[in-house]
């Protein structure tokens, strides 16, 4: 098993333009989480969050990026996931993060679900300019 590199500094961008890129993005995210010493359970949460965010990009904006970045808080490692697109933006952000709300016929678990499984959740969205969701997950 590879040893985690606690001080690893990483930042890279996974372009998301089709549904196949969703898998790539979440595999990259899981790999980074594991390198940062996340447990398999925590790494799965990170991968799940990335999967939801990447799908939102494909579904609503067509294309965008997932940026994965390592974070450190003292000795604690974390991972920052930034999902950004230049799509139509979200009309009502407060509604979009409410459980059960969906405009796509989905389970309505996308954004509210992601918010539940991460430690920090920020969303900035502007009509016609796009949406950026930034989430942080710290190692337990």
């Amino acid at each position, binding site marked *: 098993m590879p040893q985690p590199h606690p001080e690893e500094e990483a930042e890279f961008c996974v372009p998301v333009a089709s549904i196949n890129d969703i*898998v790539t993005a979440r595999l990259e995210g899981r790999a980074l989480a594991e390198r940062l010493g996340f447990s*398999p*359970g925590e790494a*799965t949460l990170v991968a799940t969050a990335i999967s*939801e965010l990447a*799908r939102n990009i494909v579904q609503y904006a067509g294309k965008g990026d997932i940026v994965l970045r390592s974070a450190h808080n003292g000795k604690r490692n974390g991972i920052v996931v930034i999902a950004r697109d230049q799509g139509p933006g979200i009309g009502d952000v407060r509604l979009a993060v409410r459980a059960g709300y969906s405009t796509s016929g*989905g389970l309505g*678990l996308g954004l*509210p679900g992601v918010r539940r499984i991460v430690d920090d959740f920020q969303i900035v969205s502007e009509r016609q300019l796009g949406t950026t969701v930034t989430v942080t997950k710290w190692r337990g």
Partner: protein
Amino acid sequence: MAVPILKQSKYLIATIQSALSDEDLLSLQTALVTKVGQFRSRGVIVDVTALDVLDSFASRTLRDIAHIIRLRGAETVIVGVQPEVAFAMVQLGITLEKVSTALDLEEGLAYLDKKLQHAAAAP
């Protein structure tokens, strides 16, 4: 990557081999619905042991598969949801309600045998 579907007597067994794209999941749905008719199958097992993530889309597709297969007259059981995947699903708010699950392939087969026996014995 297409999911291989194996016919074993009156059951179909679909074993997911790796992380699946949305497209692969939808193809699996179509393939299973067709094959249930083609082979007159009574039960379907979807083995998700190799799945790294069951997000809202994958969960919804699995739920749809189970419901569509039921409308085709067969039972579906999802087997092999990994512990960390199950944990993440619940945190996300996914419960796969009204979808049968079993620990692994063996338990899944036992479940279907019992379910079909029960159905045959009913008046």
